[in-house]
């Protein structure tokens, strides 16, 4: 019990994930700045932001459900952290995890977006409601492609839905990306990550220019700090899920540490470059993109996986 609590709160749970997520968020902002030929923020900026927000006043909406409004960020942070713990444990401690944890991770990764929607609708702000409806459409479109991609990986691992089996399989016969279906799955999951993190080109739910941060518009002070922390954790959890599923996972001994860091930086670099080189698409374009192109690609990858390509 105490061991589980340690896993959840300290390592690889809340403290560790927020720390690494903050560093990843800094590198995301720094890469963005360098792409635009700017200098970029100082290294500790994400942590300054969080500290500052905890120190500020939290304003509750007058015409809104206050308890739901405040509970939504907490749910987001806890489920994102739990998902991250389940993703990272099999890499750090072999043979941990349980049968079917891939499915649990899939559901846990959906909860942050859902709780942002609930929080935005509870705020009673019409702009927040527009953001929430866009986020809802986005979830409907990308989750289908995401579960198909996960199914393809399950097919590759002899129908096992356990993360440690997927890692063990990759250690025996090479990383999953070393095949045609693996490359297709990498592209599909990369776009799904982009949508889950609400980065450009799929940031229509928060769209600074038109919706003024959409779903987060009413949040301030500590509630917004918790949302930021949840977003940092997601920025760490989703690339590490991609690394675990397709790039052979993390290894925590000798030169393996360096490789692990390089893998996660590679995925982050791809996400950030995608974000900086694309305009925001409309919601119907995003739905068409995921429903038609990404789902068909994932189905194609499932077909290739059954014949071991």
């Amino acid at each position, binding site marked *: 019990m105490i061991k589980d609590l340690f896993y959840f709160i300290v390592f690889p749970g809340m403290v560790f994930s927020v720390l690494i997520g903050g560093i990843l968020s800094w590198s995301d*902002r720094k890469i963005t*700045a360098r792409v635009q030929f*700017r200098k*970029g*923020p100082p290294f500790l900026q994400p942590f300054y*932001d969080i500290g500052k927000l905890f120190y500020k006043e939290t*304003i509750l909406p007058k015409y809104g459900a206050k308890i739901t409004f405040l509970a939504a960020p907490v749910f987001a942070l806890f489920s994102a952290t739990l998902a991250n713990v389940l993703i990272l444990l099999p890499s750090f401690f072999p043979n941990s995890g349980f049968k079917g944890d891939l499915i649990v991770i899939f559901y846990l990764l959906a909860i942050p977006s859902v709780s942002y929607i609930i929080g935005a609708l509870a705020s009673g702000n019409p702009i927040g409601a527009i953001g929430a409806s866009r986020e809802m459409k986005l979830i409907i479109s990308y989750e289908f492609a995401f579960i198909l991609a996960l199914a393809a990986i399950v097919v590759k691992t002899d129908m096992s839905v356990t993360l440690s089996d997927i890692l063990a399989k990759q250690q025996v016969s090479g990383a999953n990306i070393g095949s045609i279906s693996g490359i297709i799955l990498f592209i599909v999951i990369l776009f799904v990550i982009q949508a889950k993190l609400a980065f450009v080109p799929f940031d229509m739910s928060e769209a600074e220019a038109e919706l003024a*941060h959409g779903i987060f518009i*009413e949040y*301030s002070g500590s509630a917004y700090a918790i949302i930021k922390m949840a977003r940092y954790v997601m920025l760490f959890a989703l690339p590490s899920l991609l690394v675990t599923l397709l790039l052979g996972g993390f290894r925590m001994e000798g030169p393996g540490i360096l490789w692990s860091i390089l893998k996660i930086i590679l995925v982050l670099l791809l996400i950030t470059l995608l974000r900086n080189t694309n305009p925001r698409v409309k919601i119907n374009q995003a739905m068409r993109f995921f429903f038609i192109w990404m789902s068909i690609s994932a189905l194609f990858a499932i077909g290739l996986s059954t014949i071991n390509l």
Partner: protein
Amino acid sequence: MFHFGGASCNNCDIEILDCLTPKYDLERFGIQLIGSIRHADVLLVSGSINRKGRERLIELYNQAPKPLLVVAFGACGCTGGIFADGIPFAGPVDKIIPVDAYIPGCPPKPEAILAGIIKLTNK
């Protein structure tokens, strides 16, 4: 940082955008232009404030989470500038809400804006 444009002639606004460009880059001090007043730490008020704008400005100030820093920007924001004798003019910014820093100029140079911002962050 949240930008409230009063009845500005757009010149100050363009100078603010200059600060976000590669040459001056406000983000190296961790400052970003954001869209919602709920996330703001600094309220930047540019342009002369007229009678209609006055109510909006007070409303905005009340909606922002405290502690909040207010910057009166440009000659119009600080004193009223050439509009000080106008009929719709509702007073310079510091007559309406408490102001922490003044950045004068018509428009202020980006260097002046950076100097003002750095003085404010060191405060």
